[in-house]
């Protein structure tokens, strides 16, 4: 499974309004719930925050990939959010994060989940793509960048 297989326009939010780590996570989950991909908002948030307490999923170069495995979702889902300004996400490089890829998976899709996370890591290794994503003004522009 690749990023392209699960990326949907309704699951992209540009810009995110949250200014804290928790606010961003809540906003990403709300996108998922509003798109009717899941209903149990609190259970989803609990799973994501439980994973964050083990170690931040804020990586380097402005990327964060919060993720969790949970019974509260029936199929692997991705929400992509982009903030206008960097957010303190306890990233590995100590810098702020702007590109948030929330990945949630049910308990029995381990292979596809691992491949999706690796696909996101590979895609975001491109500095030019990161710059273009951060400059994107809306979800349509983001979709065009991935489906060019």
């Amino acid at each position, binding site marked *: *499974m*690749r*990023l*392209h*297989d699960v990326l949907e326009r309704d699951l992209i939010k540009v810009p995110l309004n949250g200014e804290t780590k928790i606010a961003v996570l809540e906003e990403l989950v709300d996108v998922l719930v509003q798109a009717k991909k899941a209903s149990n908002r609190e259970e989803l948030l609990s799973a994501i925050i439980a994973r964050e307490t*083990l*170690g931040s*999923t804020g*990586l380097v170069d402005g990327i964060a*990939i919060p*993720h969790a495995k949970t019974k509260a979702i029936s199929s692997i889902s991705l929400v992509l959010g982009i903030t206008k300004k960097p957010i303190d996400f306890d990233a*590995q490089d100590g810098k702020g994060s702007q590109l948030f890829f929330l990945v949630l998976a049910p*308990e*029995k*899709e*381990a*292979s*596809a*989940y*691992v*491949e999706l*996370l*690796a*696909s996101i*890591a*590979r*895609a975001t*290794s*491109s500095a030019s*793509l990161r710059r273009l994503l951060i400059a994107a003004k809306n979800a349509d522009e983001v979709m065009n960048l*991935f*489906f*060019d």
Partner: protein
Amino acid sequence: MNEPFKQMLVYLDGSEDSVVAAMAAIALALRLEAHLTAMYVINTKALGELVKARIFLEMEEREYRRDIEADADRYLNHVEKMAAQKGVPFTAVKTSGSVHTEVKRYVKENEIDLLVLGGISHIHSRRDEMVSESDRMMRTAPCPVLVVRDQDQIWDLFESLPNVLAGGIDETT
């Protein structure tokens, strides 16, 4: 007349597409009197990349590796039962590493003459980093590749094949 394919390999990845590809492979192997191998590769390359990028903690890597191993056993057992049901000689192979590299290696070392794949996705992007493992296998396999697409047709074909009991007796006769 010699049949064109005697050693077939189908790649399983836990997706429904790959199971349907296995059903097509069983039907073809039955017709050609070929041997079928099903292969599941634990993608330790991807797991390693996730740990290296610190997307996964080491405890997560261990947990997901266990989950994927269990998936591999479950899917290989499922396809083994389907092959036995239709009387096709079958070998299950579980290995680990880089998926397309392991498949290519197995094809070469075992003189596989047909690789069967499901789930080749549409090309959405020109970016090299967006290429899927199935795409890589299709492009790099050192043998002919059969890509299975029409799930309904394959289901119907598989169901229409006679089932056999141990010893090769047709249940339907």
